[in-house]
């Protein structure tokens, strides 16, 4: 028997809403199968299973919002009989997710709530993060609410229950928000996303001692190689410069692995592969940086396809949980109309972010003479706990070297 918990899809996630189950009790599942669609501030995310077995019980209704780490479903292993759920509590037996935000409260599975009427503590009222946020949305003071959580804490349900009576809402509006089972919405909520970015970036700036390096690189060869490559191809087979930058960075990280991984519990843990988080700005505001897995081992055309697919799904909804959990480093590239350079803020618990400014033609000294060359400013923000500027400098030098041999990428 395994508990399947609400995963943490990044340092900035506290809760998620199950909007759709893709399995039911009795469904066989294997690693990588999508078992549920969870709505977060990053849009609707397809949550994948990490083991093989059979679904024995779904513990959350569609439309229910639960904290990270809450029990979503129980699975039986491949050999196990399809047993009834055990009476004892098994929640939290297993680490909830590889990288849970330390700020998140302990998981509280919805089935664990104490019966209504159990004493709520008088002095200090505990409020779950989801409840606090919803209360703020509705202009309620959660301390005035009666908590029905396991320890008397105020839960989302308590806030939902209190809101209609606290406000004389117009009937048309009152009918709508009382948590009708939500359809899998494919977008994201810009306000929620803004708050989540604020939380993650504040944590980064509070906890991570950043150091910064920048380097200007000559892209003459890379741009020339791309033009030749694209000239012979139909538009849907052409490559963008971003793909060349991405591949060069991935290969360079293979040579300087100290910048590819996580800072956890006071130590550096190397990434299991080069899973590049690619920062994608969303129409309407906000951004998300899902992983391109094993980018160092992927060919340029395959990287282009992966990037196109990722951008489409980031904007329309439909990113997968592994894409949000796995990035080992982040790249942000401003594209052809952006600013000259960008110096990023590290996304914890990663230890580095690499930024590419706009590629622009500028004067450059080549063999003692001045030439017009396409140049790009490349930056590295590194976590000083995990590495020093000397190591960071090696990464930038390795990227530059690789960009001078585009045919080898």
């Amino acid at each position: 028997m395994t508990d399947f918990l609400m995963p943490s899809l990044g340092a900035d996630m506290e809760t998620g809403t199950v909007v759709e189950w893709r399995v039911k009790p009795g469904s066989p599942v294997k690693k990588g199968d999508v078992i549920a669609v969870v709505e977060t501030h990053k849009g609707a995310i397809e949550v994948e299973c990490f083991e093989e077995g059979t679904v024995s019980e779904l513990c959350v209704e569609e439309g229910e919002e639960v904290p990270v780490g809450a029990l979503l479903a129980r699975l039986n292993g491949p050999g196990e009989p399809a047993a009834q759920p055990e009476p004892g509590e098994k929640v939290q037996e297993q680490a909830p997710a590889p990288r849970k935000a330390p700020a998140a409260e302990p998981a509280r599975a919805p089935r664990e709530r104490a019966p209504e009427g159990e004493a709520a503590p008088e002095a200090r009222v505990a409020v779950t993060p989801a409840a606090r946020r919803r209360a703020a949305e509705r202009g309620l003071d959660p301390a005035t609410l009666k908590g029905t959580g396991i320890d008397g804490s105020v839960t989302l349900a308590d806030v939902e229950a209190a809101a209609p009576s606290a406000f004389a809402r117009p009937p048309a509006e009152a009918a709508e928000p009382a948590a009708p089972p939500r359809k899998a919405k494919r977008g994201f909520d810009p306000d929620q996303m803004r708050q989540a970015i604020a939380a993650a970036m504040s944590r980064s700036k509070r906890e991570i001692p950043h150091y910064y390096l920048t380097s200007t690189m000559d892209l003459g060869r890379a741009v020339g190689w791309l033009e030749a490559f694209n000239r012979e191809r139909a538009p849907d087979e052409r490559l963008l410069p971003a793909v060349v930058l991405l591949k060069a960075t991935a290969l360079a990280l293979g040579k300087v692995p100290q910048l590819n991984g996580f800072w956890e519990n006071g130590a550096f843990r190397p990434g299991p592969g080069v899973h590049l988080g690619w920062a994608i700005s969303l129409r309407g505001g906000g951004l998300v940086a899902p992983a391109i897995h094993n980018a160092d081992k992927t060919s340029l055309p395959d990287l282009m396809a992966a990037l196109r697919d990722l951008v489409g799904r980031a904007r329309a909804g439909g990113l997968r949980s592994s894409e949000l959990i796995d990035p080992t480093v982040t790249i942000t590239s401003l594209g052809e109309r952006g600013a000259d350079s960008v110096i990023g803020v590290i996304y914890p618990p990663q230890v580095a972010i690499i930024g590419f400014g706009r590629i622009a033609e500028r004067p450059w000294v080549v063999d003692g003479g001045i030439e017009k060359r396409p140049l790009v400013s490349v930056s590295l923000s590194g976590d000083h706990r995990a590495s020093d500027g000397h190591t960071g400098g090696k990464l930038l030098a390795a990227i530059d070297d690789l960009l001078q041999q585009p045919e080898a990428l």
Partner: protein
Amino acid sequence: MTEAAIRKLAAEVLGDIAPEAEPGTLSDDEDMREALDLDSMDFLNFVIGLHKGSGVDIPEADYPKLFTMKGVVSYFSRDSG
């Protein structure tokens, strides 16, 4: 292609790329990359859509001719009457 057909194709392709944009707000002389906030990937998808919808080959060197609606209309009118 007729001008009407070109405009219809361009509007359809842009509608997929920037679904929230109001059709008709884009003026003929405006750089649509600015007006519709298109990044490099969006613009490449625009070119792919135009290529597939018209059958016209669009070399990369011609991209700047397609930054405005006026440019798009004249590009396709010229190529295939």
